[in-house]
C-alpha cells in the first residue's frame, strides 16, 4: 500500500509539472502581448517596454520558464501585473474562502444526493423517483450563474430572507484568525453571532454551487443502486430474511458507492471550476473571483497561479478517491499493494 501511494504521488508530481508547462505555454506562447494588454490601451510604447523588462517578458522563453519554476519551488507565484501584489499572498488570502465554499457544497451534494439516489432506486417509478430524476437532468443543464442570480432575485431581494452576497455583513468583525477558515475560526473563538452571519451568507452560494454536483451524484448512485439491488447476493441476503433497510444501506450501498465515489471526485474538480462563476455572482472573496477579475484585466500571472492551485487540488482529490476505492473494496486493496 505504501508503495502504491508513493507511486501515485510521483505521478501527481509529473502531472503537476505537465500542467505547469501547459499553463506556461498558454500564457506565454499564444500570440498576444501580455505587457501591452496589462498596460492598458492608452499606454505608450515606452511604458509597455518598461513593464516588459520589469517582468522579464523580454527574456527568452526558456529563461522565463526556469525563473518561474524556481520561484514556484520557493512558493513564489510571481507578481500581479496590475496590483503589483505577490500572487502567493493573494492566493493564501483567498483560497480558504474557496475551500470553505467548495467543502460545504460537496458535503451538501453528498448528504442530499446519495440518500436521494438510494430512495429513487428503491422506490423506482414512484413520485419520489420522478422528482429526483427531474432534478438530476436539470442540475447539469441549468447555468450556475443564472441559477445564482435567480436565487438572489427571489430569496434575497424579494423575500429578504438571506443576504445578497459577500462573506459577512459590513458591520460584522472578522474573527481573529486561527485556521483562516472563517466559519471554523468563528466556532473556535466562540463568536456565535459571527458564525450565524457567516452561515447566512453561505447558504445561497453553497446551494448554487452544489446543484450540478448533487444532480450527477444522485444520478450515478441511483443507476448503481438499481443495478446492485438485482445482484444475486442481495437476493440471497433478502432470502435469508435480512431486513430491507439493512440490505439496502449496508450491502447494496457499499457496492454502489464505488462509481459514486468516482463521480464525487470528478465533481469536486468541476466545482473548483464552478467557483469562478458562483463567486462572481455572490461576490465571494475566493480564488475564483480573483481569477475572473485578473482575467478581465488581462493579468495572466494570477490566472496561472489559480490554474495551478485548482489543478493541484483536483489531482489530490483524485488521489483520495483512489485510496477510497481501496477502503471500499478489499479486492482492489490487494491488487494495489
Amino acid at each position, binding site marked *: 500500500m505504501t508503495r502504491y501511494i508513493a507511486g501515485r504521488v510521483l505521478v501527481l508530481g509529473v502531472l503537476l509539472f505537465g500542467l505547469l508547462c501547459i499553463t506556461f505555454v*498558454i500564457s506565454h506562447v499564444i500570440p498576444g502581448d501580455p505587457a501591452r494588454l496589462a498596460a492598458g490601451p492608452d499606454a505608450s510604447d515606452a511604458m509597455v517596454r518598461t513593464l516588459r523588462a520589469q517582468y522579464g517578458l523580454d527574456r527568452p522563453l526558456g529563461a522565463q520558464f526556469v525563473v518561474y519554476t524556481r520561484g514556484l519551488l520557493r512558493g513564489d507565484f510571481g507578481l500581479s501585473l496590475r496590483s503589483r501584489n505577490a500572487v502567493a499572498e493573494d492566493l493564501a488570502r483567498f483560497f480558504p474562502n474557496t475551500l470553505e465554499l467548495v467543502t460545504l457544497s460537496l458535503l451538501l451534494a453528498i448528504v442530499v444526493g446519495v440518500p436521494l439516489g438510494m430512495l429513487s432506486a428503491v422506490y423506482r417509478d414512484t413520485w419520489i423517483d420522478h422528482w429526483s*430524476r427531474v432534478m438530476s437532468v436539470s442540475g447539469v443543464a441549468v447555468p450556475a*450563474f443564472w441559477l445564482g442570480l435567480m436565487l438572489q432575485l427571489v430569496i434575497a431581494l424579494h423575500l429578504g430572507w438571506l443576504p445578497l452576497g459577500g462573506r459577512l455583513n459590513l458591520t460584522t468583525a472578522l474573527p481573529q484568525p486561527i485556521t483562516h477558515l472563517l466559519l471554523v475560526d468563528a466556532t473556535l473563538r466562540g463568536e456565535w453571532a459571527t458564525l450565524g452571519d457567516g452561515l447566512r451568507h453561505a447558504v445561497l452560494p453553497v446551494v448554487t454551487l452544489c446543484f450540478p454536483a448533487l444532480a450527477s451524484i444522485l444520478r450515478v448512485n441511483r443507476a448503481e443502486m438499481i443495478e446492485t439491488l438485482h445482484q444475486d447476493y442481495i437476493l440471497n441476503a433478502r432470502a435469508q430474511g435480512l431486513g430491507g433497510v439493512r440490505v439496502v444501506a449496508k450491502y447494496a450501498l457499499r457496492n454502489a458507492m464505488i462509481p459514486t465515489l468516482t463521480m464525487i471526485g470528478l465533481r469536486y474538480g468541476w466545482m473548483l*471550476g464552478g467557483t469562478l462563476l458562483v463567486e462572481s455572482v455572490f461576490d465571494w472573496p475566493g480564488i475564483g473571483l480573483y481569477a475572473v477579475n485578473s482575467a478581465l484585466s488581462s493579468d495572466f500571472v494570477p490566472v496561472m497561479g489559480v490554474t495551478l492551485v485548482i489543478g493541484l487540488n483536483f489531482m489530490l482529490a483524485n488521489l483520495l478517491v483512489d485510496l477510497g476505492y481501496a477502503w471500499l473494496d478489499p479486492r482492489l486493496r490487494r491488487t494495489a499493494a
Partner: protein
Amino acid sequence: MSARVQSLAFRGWWEDRATSAREARRYARIFGRNAASVAGLGLVVTFLAIALVGPWIVPYPEDATGAVHLDRKLQAPSRAHWFGTDEVGDDVYTRVVLGARLSLQIGLVITLVAALIGVPLGVVAGYVGGPLGEIIMRVTDVFLAVPALVLAVAVVSALGPGIVNAILAVALVWWPGYVRLVQGKALAISQESYVEAARAVGVGRVRIAFVHLLPNCLSPILVKASMDMGTAILTAASLGFIGLGAQPPFPEWGAMISHGRNYLPTWWWYSAFPGLAIYLTVLGFNLLGDGLRDVLDPKSRG
C-alpha cells in the same frame, strides 16, 4: 444469365436496405419508448428550427445589431415585447431568438474542432500505441486534470476577450475528452477477431484504423458530441457571463444575463429569459444524448 445475376445482386442490395430499415425502425422504437428522450429531441428540433428561421420570425431584427431606442427602454413584458426590453430599448425576445443561431454556431464549432483534434489522436494512442501513444495520453491526462472552464479562462486572459477568442479557447481545451473516449474504444476493438483477421490477410495499419476501427467508434463519439453541444454552449455562455466572451451588441445569452444582472430585481426579465433559453437548450441536448446512448451504445449506460 446476366439478367439473373443482376436480379440476384438487386435482391442482395434490397435485403441490405430492408435490414437497415428494420434496424432503424427498431432503434426508433427503443428511442420512442423513453419520454425523456423524445422530449430532448423535441427541444433540440425546436432549437434548430429557431436558429434556422430566427431572422424571419423576430419582430425587431435590427435590435440584435446594436439598434438603440431609448424611448422604450426597460419595458416589462407585454404584447409588443414578449420578454420586455433592455437598457437601450432592444427587444429581449428578438435577441434571445437570434441568440439561438449564435449558440448553435458556437456549439458546432467547439464540438467539431474538439472531435477533429481528439478523434485522430485517440485512434493513434489506442491503436498505434508505443511512445507516441503514451505521450498523447499523458498530455490528455494533464488537460483533464483541470476543469475546462478554468483553462479556457486562462487562454482568454492571454488572448484577450471576445467571442472568437472564447470559442477558440473552449475548443482548445475540449479535445482531450475525445482522446480518452476513442483511445479506450480503439484499444478494445483492436483486440477483436475481425481486426486480427484483417491484419492476418495483410491489411495495412492506416486502412485498419479508418475502415475497421473508426466506424465502430462512431456511436460513442456521436453520443458524446450530442452531450457536448449542450455543455459547450453552457461553457461559452459562462465565458460570456464573466465578460470574457461575446461583447455587446452580440445577442449572446451569457453576455445578456451578465448585463441584465445590473438591472435586478426590478427589471428581472432582462436576465431571466436568456437563462431560460440556455437551460432548455442544454437540457435538450443532454436528454437527446441520453436517448442516443440507450439506442446506440447501451453497454456504456451510466
